[in-house]
């Protein structure tokens, strides 16, 4: 494509691509996100390609970014009807082409079926999608992320043209402030306020950074944005650079995201070719380019000052914030740093306006950008829930709606599993129990409940989850990932890890809880950076809401979640066992013996408490004992 000479010419190019896109054309979109690729989307795609070639068909095949419904991948959507096929295998391809494309027939066995056995034909009717409000993810699933033409055809870069033509930099910042957009990386700091102080700061050149060092276990929304719609991030950054007066941008992306890296590099190349990046963007005075910086996988490098140290080539440790990053950031120059999702929110805000954006979400931000949480947030819904994946929801929605409407409820509820808690905000977040399921979630409400928004991880836990073990897991994660600079974070986590490690083994003492609380309170006020300041949250929130579980471990050696291996014992109930031999065949240590059609018995000496017998038993005959009954 040719270099575009002016914002007006860009509008013409967008128009041309929009006109060329026929919304009624038959399109097969195959999800090419990391989740679907992991479940075999590449071979489905290849099979479509070769079969279409064989049949000499003119049907358009589109490899798109992540659709979000990773649990059911590989996903295939047939447009314009929006028929969603899930868990598609290469051998289904011929049938899809013959029946659905050829005859307009829907293949029922490939449709999504919920726990109540209802099937859904169209993507937009599936409960997982139905309750979502997709702004950042609006184009995922409709465009090929490797083609800038697709982004343009959806109106992409229109916001940039509009900004360069009609909106002064100060006005852009004013709009971002008024929109109430708060940092999606977890801090929740109003983006416009940050932009303004960076614009007002003295020093040149100014830098902007996109924090793509997504490190929370179970969070993958930033990856999916970059994989599925890299141009939205780039467009947001160009608008930000124009508003702030920055000439150089960095994307700090973790090296463990090879596909996101590839798509981003490709997108940057295309944007440069069109004159959207580089000197004199679209013939204006604005010059800006973006460099990719790959991170080595240290969790702490998601912290803004550690991230900048890493870009500068130094050890990724947080540094003293003598002055705000906006004034003295990268190489001592004014710097603005925002997360991937925040940047991706900028083009829609510029395009559709402040009033539209503030109509979504909670609170009132008209006079105070801290007054509420506006727009949407993408959560990665994982854990003991039927539909795992990424959901983009308006701020203020309840956890119940996310877990039960979109998530389809708790996994194995037919086996009696029930909801216990949801962990939000990544490892430094907290666990929220059932009584708060209906609270509206936004930045401030989650903090009030003792957790946090974080980057939007949401791990659902059922009654077979031990909350002490959850705390131990996250504390150990943070212990590994603490940079080691300050005493409270480094030594506090070490001590907590030792104590929790004893409690889950049944060797806890009552004094331990006092010590845990003392450590947590000091870590929460005396640590150097936010990693340490929030590192005690998993312990604090589980102690607050699930203290009885700690006490049961200590007093009775009982694990309510039946998870702590040292405190449980698997047995087979005489009443329910039918002698089907399934458990005996699946047991990895051959600890189960018994004749066909007679009661099976577990040899406790050989049992490694892996739980396979319970998972496979169809008659609910395996019981897990803990505490005195053990």
């Amino acid at each position, binding site marked *: 494509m040719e270099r575009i000479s002016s914002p007006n010419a860009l509008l013409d190019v967008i128009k041309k691509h929009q006109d060329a896109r026929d919304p009624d054309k038959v399109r097969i979109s195959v999800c090419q996100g990391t989740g679907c690729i992991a479940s075999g989307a590449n071979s489905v795609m290849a099979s479509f390609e070769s079969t279409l070639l064989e049949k000499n068909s003119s049907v358009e095949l589109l490899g798109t970014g992540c659709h979000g419904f990773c649990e059911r991948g590989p996903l295939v959507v047939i447009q314009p009807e929006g028929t969603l096929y899930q868990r598609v295998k290469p051998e289904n391809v011929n049938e899809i082409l013959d029946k659905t494309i050829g005859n307009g027939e829907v293949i029922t066995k490939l449709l999504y079926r919920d726990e109540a056995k209802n099937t859904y034909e169209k993507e937009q009717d599936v409960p997982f999608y139905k309750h979502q409000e997709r702004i950042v993810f609006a184009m995922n699933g409709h465009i090929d992320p490797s083609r800038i033409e697709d982004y343009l055809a959806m109106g992409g870069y229109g916001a940039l043209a509009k900004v360069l033509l009609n909106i002064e930099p100060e006005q852009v910042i004013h709009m971002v402030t008024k929109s109430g957009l708060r940092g999606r990386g977890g801090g929740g700091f109003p983006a416009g306020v940050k932009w303004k102080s960076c614009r007002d700061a003295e020093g040149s050149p100014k830098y902007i950074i996109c924090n793509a060092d997504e490190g929370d276990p179970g969070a993958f929304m930033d990856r999916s944005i970059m994989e599925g719609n890299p141009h939205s991030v780039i467009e947001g950054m160009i608008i930000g650079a124009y508003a702030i007066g920055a000439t150089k941008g960095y994307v700090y992306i973790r090296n463990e995201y090879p596909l996101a890296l590839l798509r981003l590099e490709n997108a940057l190349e295309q944007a440069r070719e069109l004159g959207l990046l580089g000197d004199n963007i679209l013939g204006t005075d604005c010059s800006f380019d973006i460099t990719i910086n790959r991170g080595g996988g240290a969790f702490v490098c998601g912290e803004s000052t550690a991230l900048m140290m890493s870009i500068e080539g130094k050890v990724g440790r947080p540094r003293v914030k003598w002055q705000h990053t906006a004034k003295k950031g990268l190489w001592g120059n004014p710097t603005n740093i925002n997360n991937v999702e925040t940047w991706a929110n900028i083009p829609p805000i510029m395009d559709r306006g402040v009033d539209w954006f503030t109509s979504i979400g909670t609170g009132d931000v008209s006079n105070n950008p801290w007054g509420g949480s506006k727009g949407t947030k993408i959560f990665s819904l994982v854990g003991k829930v039927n539909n795992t994946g990424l959901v983009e929801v308006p701020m203020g929605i309840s956890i119940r709606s996310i877990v039960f409407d979109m998530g389809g409820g708790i996994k194995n509820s037919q086996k009696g599993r029930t909801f216990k808690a949801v962990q939000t905000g990544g490892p430094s977040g907290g666990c929220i129990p059932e009584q708060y399921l209906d609270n509206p979630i936004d930045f401030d409400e989650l903090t009030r409940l003792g957790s946090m928004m974080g980057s939007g991880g949401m791990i659902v836990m059922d009654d077979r989850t031990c909350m002490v073990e959850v705390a131990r897991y996250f504390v150990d994660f943070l212990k590994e990932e603490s940079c080691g600079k*300050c005493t409270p974070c480094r030594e506090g986590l070490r001590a907590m890890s030792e104590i929790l490690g004893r409690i889950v083994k049944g060797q806890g003492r009552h004094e331990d809880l006092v010590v845990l609380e003392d450590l947590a309170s000091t870590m929460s006020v005396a640590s150097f950076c936010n990693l340490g300041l929030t590192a005690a949250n998993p312990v604090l929130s589980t102690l607050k809401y699930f203290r009885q579980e700690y006490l049961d471990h200590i007093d009775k050696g009982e694990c309510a979640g039946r998870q702590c291996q040292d405190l449980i014992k698997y047995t087979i109930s005489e009443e329910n066992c039918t002698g089907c031999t399934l458990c005996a065949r699946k047991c990895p240590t051959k600890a189960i013996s018994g004749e066909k059609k007679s009661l099976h018995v577990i040899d406790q000496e050989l049992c490694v408490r892996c739980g396979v017998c319970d998972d496979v038993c169809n008659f609910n005959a395996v019981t897990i004992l803990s505490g005195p009954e053990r």
Partner: protein
Amino acid sequence: MIHVRINGKLLEAKKGETVLQLAQRNGYHIPNLCYHPSLKADGACRMCLVEVKGANAKPNSLTTACTLTVKEGMEVLLDTPEVSKHRNTILEMLMALVPDSPVLTKMAEEYGLKEIRLAQGDEVCIKCGLCVRICDEVVGAKALAMEGRGTETTFNPPFNEPPERCVACTSCAFICPVQCIPVKKTNDSITIWGREFDRLKCTRCGRALDLTEEHMALMMTRSSHLKPEDLNVCDVCSRKEVLGTMKSLVDGQITLERVGK
């Protein structure tokens, strides 16, 4: 002048100085383990916690005095119950890490920390990082580095091998607050970080100097007006020389111009 109150007393602070510097200048003692006036503040040990009020500080805000720059109207409290509670927990953490340090034990006595409730380790280093920072910022040898992350953090020569860039100035051992860097000195050699260096001898009297060939070379690259003869004479001989010069001056044997040369 900036006006800051410490424990209620109004003090005049210099622009840009930290609360720790202001406090020390006025005779207040704030415990610390990772601060040294010749180095940039790092805020790592967190022992110098103080409570801040006014000057836009959040209510009941605790922060480290070494990294807190003075601001007009700031009020700092050094020994509130909150400060002492958290400081003692931090000290407890450090004493669990390094159980047998006399420096920490003395601090514990001073601040009334009676019991270590945490599992005890067997380390000697409190991971304050002063050794690496002085080697980098003051000496300029950059012979030491931080290695690892979190609880695995260590401060050592790279790859834990005898450090190539070390000059045996022993600043690291001198600055270490818990004295955990061993130095072995004989009349002929200095051994540190597993590497043995020859000691230079005074060119006048032959007495062993606290100086190595490597250290002298480094100092000369860092300061162009230094000459070997400025460094390789022992204190006694230099003093003798100065005294001799002064005597000649008094006696009128030489003039001030000649001394300049």
